[in-house]
């Protein structure tokens, strides 16, 4: 019956019925491709979400490590702070310390704001660790707009949340595109018994195919952006961890050199500075301190490194 009916429809529509059937078959295949592509983006999003959480955690650890610098710097006097760094030619110790303190203060603010919360990417801590707020030149590669989100918070929510928090993201857009056409073949193919009518249906299916292709293009772009972000986070994770380990290693070395007998050394330095009005640190100590400040300055840059700007674009 089916074949006979098809044959009849082909006669009535001068062969257009078969064309419509072929178009619909192509469209269904494309729709399947889109679903697979959405699935790929979703899987990669979950992977990147874990990486982002690991980066936030690493930055938190790094900030706590950097704070140790205060154990040494608190005893630096004004004169010591004006000492110009030979490696950082135009920077005095004061300038270096001020930049380090700024990093610590901003990070501590974010940690306090997120107290009691997990290190999620969509928390204040996540924003501090990942989002640039000082107008760093963006590369123009947006993640937010690709996922349907328009701002950084939405981008972070997209990474931090499930598919439902996509904010009209790929999945939702995909459904919208496809929704209206599921019923097209059944109703139209039966009703359209003349050439022009079927031709119009072919045009509608072609339009839907183009729309689906555009959505696949969007999803591919999202996949690229998410994958690139994942690679960037891997890079930051590895380098920040290395810098933290190096800083902690050097901090211990410097601390031991400055305070070889720990508490006794501190008392000795205090008495010497009070009784003899001498500098709390010796010149040799200042050399060690200078070194740890240099290490901390670079470490700070890595902690401050962000991955997206306020508009949700990759940096």
């Amino acid at each position, binding site marked *: *019956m089916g074949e*006979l*009916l098809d044959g*009849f429809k082909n006669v*009535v529509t001068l062969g257009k019925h078969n064309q419509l059937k072929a178009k619909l078959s192509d469209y269904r295949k494309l729709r399947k491709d889109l679903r697979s592509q959405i699935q790929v983006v979703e899987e990669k999003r979950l992977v990147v979400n874990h990486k982002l959480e690991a980066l936030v955690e690493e930055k938190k650890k790094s900030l706590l490590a950097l704070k140790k610098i205060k154990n040494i710097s608190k005893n630096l006097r004004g004169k010591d702070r004006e000492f110009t760094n030979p*490696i950082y030619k135009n920077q005095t110790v004061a300038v270096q310390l001020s930049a380090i303190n700024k990093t610590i203060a901003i990070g501590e603010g974010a940690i306090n704001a997120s107290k009691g919360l997990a290190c999620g990417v969509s928390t204040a801590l996540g924003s501090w660790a990942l989002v640039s707020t000082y107008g760093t*030149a963006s*590369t*123009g*590669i947006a993640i937010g707009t690709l996922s349907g989100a328009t701002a950084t918070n939405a981008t972070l929510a997209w990474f931090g949340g499930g598919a439902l928090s996509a904010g009209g993201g790929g999945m939702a857009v995909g459904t919208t595109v496809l929704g209206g056409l599921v019923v097209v073949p059944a109703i139209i193919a039966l*009703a359209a*018994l*003349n*050439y*022009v*009518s079927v*031709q*119009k249906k*072919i*045009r509608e299916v*072609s*339009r839907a*195919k*183009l729309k689906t*292709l*555009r959505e*696949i*293009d969007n999803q*591919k*772009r999202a*996949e*690229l952006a998410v*994958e*690139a972000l994942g*690679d*960037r986070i891997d*890079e*930051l994770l*590895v*380098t920040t961890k*290395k*810098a933290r380990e*190096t800083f902690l*290693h*050097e901090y211990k*070395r410097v601390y031991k050199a400055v305070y070889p007998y720990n508490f006794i050394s501190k008392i000795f330095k205090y008495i010497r500075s009070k009784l003899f009005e001498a500098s709390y640190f010796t010149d040799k100590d200042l050399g060690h301190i200078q*070194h740890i400040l*240099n*290490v901390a300055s*670079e*470490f700070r*840059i*890595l902690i401050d*490194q962000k991955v997206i700007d306020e508009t949700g674009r*990759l*940096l």
Partner: protein
Amino acid sequence: MSENDIQIGKDIVKLITKNGPKISKLEVPSANVFDFFNKLSNAYTEKQITEREIKKIESQERLLCLEITKKYDFYFHLCKHIFAERKVAIAKSFEIIDHGISEKNNDLITAGLKSLSQIVSSSPFANLDNLRKLLESDKIVDI
């Protein structure tokens, strides 16, 4: 002719009857011959317009298909290449740092960290974006 075939034939006739008014408008000449030809010519014009539109959509479709396959293959490859290159530079900085630590050489440690922070603070996507703009501008690049 079997009974089944007869039933199919009946179904088809039923279908034609159901859609009768639509078909008859085009196929059965009305008393007014001019009106009939007018309808035919309208149908022809409509057919031409729709055909043109379909061709336009299909060419956009072909272009987009080609773009999707070629463009993303290229970008994914480029991205991998950029990060692989940076990985090598980062590994070199790690080496310098480790060497500095084992030698207790402060200058080496600072130099290693400085190069590390320079690599990381330079955006891996800056060149990618320039390239994207260049490709989209259709400019001819002299090599």
